Every structure is written in C-alpha cells, then in structure tokens.
C-alpha cells in the first residue's frame, strides 16, 4: 500500500484514565477510499481511539495523523475536513431539520441545499419536523446527514446501526456503500460482525486497549479455518434475518 494515500496514520497511541489503559499502544493506517472497521467488545477502547482521531480528546502519547495533519496540534483543521457521527447525537430544540442543517453548514462557512441532503437520507418529507419528533431510525439517518454538510473526505461513524431494525440497518449499509462509491473514506466502529463483513475492506479487532488482529474480513476467516476451526452447526444458505426481511420487505419502517 502506497504511503502517500494513507488518510489516517496512527502510531503507538496511548491513553489512560487513572489506572485503566483505555488505548494501549496501537498503530494502524487507513487508505483513502477504504471502509475501515474497528471491532471489539464494550470497553475495548474503540470509542476512545476514534475520539482522539476526531480531535475530541487528547492522547497521552503516540501520534495520530489525519490527511497529513497532526490531530493534537491542530484539531480544528482536522474537524474541517471530517464528518463525525457520535454514538448518540442531539441537536438544537425548536429548530426544523433544514434549519439545523443550515446552521451546521455555516459552522464550516458553507451554504448547502438542506432539502437535497435530506433527500439523500430519505428524510425530505420531514424537512420541517423537529429532531425530537423523529423515530430512532430517522434520528440516526438525520445524524448521518448532518455529518455530510461539509462534504467530508473522511467519515467517522460510531456504532451507526446500534438499536436499528433490520430494514433501517440495511438502509444504513447502503448509505455507507454509497459514501465509499463517492470516494469518501469511512472509519466505523461496530459490535455486529455481519455488518463488518458486509461493509469493511479491512477490520481491526481491539481488546483491552490493544489491536489483537487486523486484516481483510475474508482473510481473518480463512486464517481461522486454516487452524482447523469448524462450526458446530453447518451454516445454511439463509438465516433468520433473511426470513424476516423476506416476509416484512426491505422498505424503511419509520412511522
């Protein structure tokens, strides 16, 4: 992989909270246009890692470079070119969705077509609604739309499908794939392995603040099989989620 095209470079990053080593000396890099997943159980250090890269938290030691900018040195410069979806997002009360997007865009000195952006996440019919009146899936989609106001080259999605129903999850997956086709780099965290398998070009598995494995999903599966691993029950060609989606359809269910 060509060094020049690395959009994220992390070297020996460390962050402790008291005695807890949340991030314990990790190194990885993400290429431009890649969808990179950080997997791991709760408390593995995924969110802390992502927050350091976003310029929302300072590391104790090590370096984090985003698009050639040292995040710790100039977090504002990094924030200008990235889009961040937080695990739980909240927006101003008493402003409509379009009003919120217009304000968010102005924070980057930009002007956007808010309705067009809402159309991209299938929320154009709720343009005048308030954020708090949206369903869970709609809120998640709006939150993604809000990360696009500055046309970011790198998107951070922190557990983007947690709490969503299968239809909304598929919709989010389609969005991520579109971002990739638009040439954006996506760095996402997730608990769901089928999500990582479906979306990510490469994944890093974290546990206790360290990266314990990093490769393409298929390569990780192959290396496990090469160790002689066999599932107790052989996989059928369809699973219960396929049945559920076949019966209830793939249309978004928001209302």
């Amino acid at each position, binding site marked *: 992989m060509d060094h020049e095209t690395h959009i994220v470079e992390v070297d020996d990053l460390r962050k402790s909270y008291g005695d807890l080593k949340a991030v314990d000396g990790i190194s990885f890099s993400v290429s431009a246009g890649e969808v990179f997943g950080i997997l791991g159980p709760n408390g593995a250090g995924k969110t802390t890692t992502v927050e350091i890269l*976003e310029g*929302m938290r300072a590391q104790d030691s090590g370096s984090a470079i985003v698009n050639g900018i040292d995040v710790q040195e100039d977090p*504002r*410069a990094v*924030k*200008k070119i990235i889009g*961040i979806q*937080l695990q*739980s*997002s*909240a*927006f*101003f*009360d*008493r*402003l409509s969705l379009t*009003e919120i997007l*217009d*304000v*968010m*865009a*102005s*924070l*980057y*000195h*930009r*002007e956007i077509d808010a309705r067009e952006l809402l159309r991209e996440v299938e929320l154009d019919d709720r343009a005048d609604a308030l954020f708090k009146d949206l369903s869970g899936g709609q809120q998640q989609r709006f939150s993604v739309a*809000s990360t696009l106001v*500055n046309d970011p080259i790198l998107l951070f999605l922190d557990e983007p499908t947690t709490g969503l129903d299968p239809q909304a999850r598929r919709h989010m997956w389609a969005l991520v794939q579109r971002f990739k086709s638009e040439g954006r780099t996506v760095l996402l965290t997730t608990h769901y392995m089928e999500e990582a398998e479906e979306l990510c070009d490469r994944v890093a598995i974290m546990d206790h603040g360290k990266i314990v494995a990093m490769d393409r999903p298929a390569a990780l599966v192959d290396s496990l099989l090469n160790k002689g691993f066999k599932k107790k029950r052989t996989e059928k060609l369809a699973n219960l989620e396929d049945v559920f989606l076949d019966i209830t359809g793939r249309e978004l269910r928001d209302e």
Partner: protein
Amino acid sequence: MFSRLLRTNPTISLTKASMRIWFRDRQAIFWTFFLPLVLISVFGLLDFGSFRTVDLGIVDRADNDASQKLIDEVRALGTFDISDDLSEEKEREALLDGDRNLLLIIEPGFGEAQSPAQRRVTVIYNEGEPQESAAGQTIIQHLLDEITFAEGNISERYTIDASPVDSRNLRFIDFLMPGVVAMSIMQMGLFSVAFSFLQLKSRGVLRRLQATPILPASFIFAQVFTRLTVSILQTLVLVGLAVLAFDVHLEGNLGFMLLLALLGGGVFVSMGFAVSGWAHTEDVAAPVANAIALPMMFLSGVFFPRDAMPEPLRAVADFLPLSYLADALRNVAVDGASLWSQWENVLGLTVWLAVTFFIAVRLFRWE
C-alpha cells in the same frame, strides 16, 4: 455577496438560530414577559400607597343643638368618611378592628354653659395609621376653633388662601415599575442562560457542536446577544404597558433606561454562565440560581424602599447588583435623572460585570 456572508458566517447564523430558539420557547416567553406584565397590572389596578380618606366614627352622647351643629359642620367638609348611626360599643369595636381612624365622642352637655363639657370633645385615634389620625385631629380642632371664633364674633382672623396645583404624585405603581423591569432582567439573565446552557450540555448538543470547527466565542456571543436583545425588549414592553395602561409618567429618557438594561443584562447573563459552569447539572443549578435571585428580589428595593430595612441588612443590600440596577432605572424613570448623574450605580454595575465575567470565564466548561 453580503447575503451569502449572512448565511455562511458561523457567528451570525448561530445568533439567528439562538434567537429563533429563544422566541419559539413559550415557557421562556411566559416567565420573561407575561409574569412581570401581570405583576405590574395587579399593582397598577390596586394602586397601593395613595392617601386614603379618613374614616371617622361619631358618637353623640350630648344629642343637643350644639352637637348637631358640629356634626353638620364635619359632614359639610366632605373630608371624612363618616359613620354616626352606630352605638358607641359598635364604634369602639370598629376602631379596634382598624375600620376607623378616629372616633369622635361628643360628651353630654357639649356647648351648654356651666357644663364641664361645654368646650370639650373626646377623640380616640388609631395609632397604627398616624398620618390619617393626625390629619383628622387637626381638622376637628380647626372646626372647633371656627365655632369658637364665630361665638366670639371675632372676624379678623388669619386666613390661608389655598390654591390647587397639579403636582407629580408618586404612586406605588410609579415606584414599582422600574423595580419590576430590573427584577425581570435579572430572572431572564440568570435562569435563561443557566438552564438552556446546561440543557444543551446534558443532552449532548454541545458535544455535537464540538465535533465541528466551531469557535467557543461564536457560540457564547450568540447566547449573550440573544439575552441582551430580550432584556431590551423586556424594558420596552414593561415601560410601554405602565405608561399606556396605568398612566405612569416616564420622567426620564427611555434610551438611558435601555442602556441600563443592557448593562444589567450583561451582569446577570455572566452570573447565569457562572452558575452553569459551577453547577454542572440542571438539578443543582435550580436551587443555586434561586438562592441568588430570591434574596435579591426582596433586599434590592424592588417592591419597597430599602430605607425600611434595618441598618445592618441595608448596608449589605445597597451593594447588590439588583439594587444598583433598580435604583438607576428608578431614578431615571421617576426623577428624570440623567445617565451621568447615576455614575455611582453605573460604576457598581460595571464592577459586578467585571467580577461575574471573570468568575464565568474561570468556571466555564464545554463538558
């Protein structure tokens, strides 16, 4: 070009958003405008503090021509609210209940020669209302003198030529209005900032904003600008109501009052930020903000003059920011004072602004 700047400048668009958010909040509008309006209306309609008529009870024990003549003379004055058809017992009861200022008892033998009561009446007065009681006594004394002079045919007396003039009489509503303006600016600044900021913090809105290249100064400017605009509007609305609906005479310059509203608004908005920085959550901020606002409401001469307070309390109360604001607003509104004549109050407010601003900056936390 310019209109694009208006839409893409973060500070301008945050200010626009913050104004929209504020004016769409019905609860905030209620507390900020409606409640002070009700307060002014209630006191405007009740009109406390004006000099009331003197309630006089008469017990005629003499029941003769002379006593009847005296009663007629008293009645003819029109100064008193008179009751003379009740028994003595009932009248004394009414006096003790505070329904009378004076009880005039005309003893038997009044006006009859050789009677010990020829030139005597008894007056029992309500000590609790000294002004009305004293005025009543003076009037009765004057009447008795007139009768005496008439009997003695003394015609060359000193007289007063009294002529009326339309003076500026300070009513309670005149006193109250500037105080209520000051109080509502304090409430708005302190509570509106502390609560909305902590709410943005606890709900995670600030965190989402921090994920953007926002400058804290832009955000704070938007918040402060909105509140200062509201404090100007409060002053205009409350003064407007008092002048239009309750005939309050605005002696001073409205522009001076608006400048004072800005300065006072600045003090209490800083105080609101300081509380929100110190309190961390809304549950803590509520009692803290109340603990600051309530004592000031009663100690700063909003509802009654601080002269009525015991000396040690007054010494403290005089230095409260709400005292400076209420005094300056009142001096301008009621006495027509100029802004520079109020330099002591302005200086007091400025010192408070510096102190609260310093504390607010020290305690300010995004997270």
